[in-house]
């Protein structure tokens, strides 16, 4: 036997949900939260709506021009378009297109003594790939060396041969100043500047990575190279596997620790993968 209590006191627990939920007794969708809607738009509303439609049309047209492949119209309107779109609506949707990613770039690093005796290369990307493997929720940090390697590979590929040669040379001191000096006679451009910045950043990352693994004695030089891992052709998928090749080897550089570098936090992060 069950006892059921019916009281004259109103149950206030559920009453506060009424207007935000379906009506419990009839299951009708209830009015949304917010002020009641006017039944007849006024002239002011129509004017506001007209302005809104115009803004909407301009905005969508700008998004269309920015997102679309390069065409005469977005080239002609490049400056006003950039002024409107950047930075809030910065975007690029050529994802996996026109061709899907069939190769990825990874980073290998090593410390070199001053006499340039050969040492072992160490993968700086393996720790990130370990953090990605069988992980349904991978951190953004599993992307860093892959992005660095890809961006440098792209920047390097845009340079003329005489500037590419500069990056494959070794510089034991003031590496980037020396590299900039060597490039002066070759008409440097924003592409060279970008490649130089990336080279310096990668060396900074490599310095921290090697230090975190106690692989960088004082005074040693740092060197990195980019590994390219490519998928086999679709038709060969049952007989071939991924291939790994050296995409490029940068020359050795001096160690570099940027101002404010938190080395302990860097080392802790590597352990968190």
């Amino acid at each position: 036997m069950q006892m059921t209590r019916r009281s004259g006191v109103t149950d206030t627990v559920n009453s506060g949900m009424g207007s935000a939920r379906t009506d419990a007794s009839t299951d009708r969708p209830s009015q949304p939260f917010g002020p009641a809607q006017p039944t007849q738009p006024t002239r002011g509303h129509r004017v506001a709506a007209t302005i809104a439609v115009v803004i909407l049309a301009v905005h969508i047209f700008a998004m269309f021009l920015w997102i679309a492949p390069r065409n005469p119209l977005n080239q002609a309107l490049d400056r006003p378009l950039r002024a409107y779109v950047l930075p809030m609506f910065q975007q690029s949707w050529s994802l996996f297109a026109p061709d899907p990613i069939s190769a990825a770039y990874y980073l290998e690093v090593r410390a070199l003594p001053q006499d340039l005796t050969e040492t072992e290369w160490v993968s700086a990307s393996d720790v990130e790939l370990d953090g990605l493997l069988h992980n349904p929720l991978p951190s953004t940090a599993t992307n860093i060396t892959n992005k660095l390697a890809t961006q440098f590979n792209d920047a390097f590929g845009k340079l003329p041969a005489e500037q590419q040669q500069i990056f494959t040379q070794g510089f034991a001191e003031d590496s980037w100043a020396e590299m900039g000096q060597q490039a002066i006679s070759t008409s440097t451009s924003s592409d060279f500047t970008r490649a130089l910045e990336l080279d310096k950043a990668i060396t900074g990352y490599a310095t921290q990575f090697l230090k975190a693994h106690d692989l960088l004695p004082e005074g040693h030089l740092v060197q990195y190279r980019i590994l390219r891992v490519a998928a086999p052709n679709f038709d060969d998928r049952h007989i071939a596997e991924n291939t790994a090749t050296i995409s490029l080897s940068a020359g050795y550089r001096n160690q570099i620790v940027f101002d404010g570098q938190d080395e302990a936090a860097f080392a802790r992060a590597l352990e968190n993968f």
Partner: protein
Amino acid sequence: MSAVFTQAFSAVSTRWNSLLDWFTGPQRNTWGISFLRIILGETLTVQLIVNFPFRSYLWGPAAAWSQELRPSSEFPFQRAVFGPTADSALMTTGYLILVAAAVAFTLGWHTRIATLVVLAAHTSLVFSDGVYMDQSDNLLRFALFYALFMNSAAHWSLDARRDSARRESVSQESVCQSPTALSTLRSRLSGYTAIAHNTALAAFGAHLCLIYVASAMFKIQGGKWQHGTAVFYPLQIPHFSPFPELSALASSNGIAVMIASYAAVYFQLFFPFMLLHRVLRKVALLGVVGMHLGIAVLMGLPFFSFFMLAGDSIFVSDKTYAAVDGWIRRKWRDARRPSAPASQTMIIDDSPTTSSTSPVRSAAE
């Protein structure tokens, strides 16, 4: 001739007024936008928690090595709180504020303010680095920007619960009281807020359609997409196959690869047009949901996929959401209701209004 012009003008005027009626009418798709809020907020919160141990490595002084790399376009004061040159304590504080704001946004608590804080803080976070900001971050920023102008707390939110309680207490106090200045102002502005809401909704929907169509247009230029083999390649790359066993299974069958490759292109290309048909809309939504779930699981891009799914949720009708919501509430209510045969139930009636002299009576009376 003038009669023709008059007729044409009249037709255009009628269409124009119909168009304006859509914007000046009630707030549209409030259920879908509320669902968008929950999925966006939840996905962002999880992503922030996952990245918490790496916050300095990504956006703090552990990333000082990247300080000379900057995004191609910037906001003012971009690296004031986050970034390779940031103070560690300030960066962590900013990060925790972002997490708290993301939770408030998800729960729909002071939603408009929470949306603004999440938008500002997340933008500051991702723009502070010059290496790993990607389209996932861009998509979230757009969604938050449009959500600022929409009522995303109409349903399933603490704001809605609070407003409902406030309305009930106001209606219980006195029907004859004159409206307050605040309620009068709200009433006058409600039409304009509806216009802003509907405009933002239209902008967001159109933006998503542009993204799908543009993605498809870029894809069809590539030989591998044309030949139906494109999906195979990323699944071989370590970075895009967190579950190599699943990737091998998914990519070994040529027919499956072909269907997935063509489906990815055609569902995206025809997405806006399929939305115009009652049945095809459902097919389109199922198609893109399947595509994004596949990307989330097989390619290790769960956050990007769920941000896209959140955006897709605005294309599901309010009727569907309301029906699902009603069904869940009925099931919940039925589950909580004690079940017992009526003859075995005794009712204790302690109401002061009852006329019965006995507090206990059988349910058979």
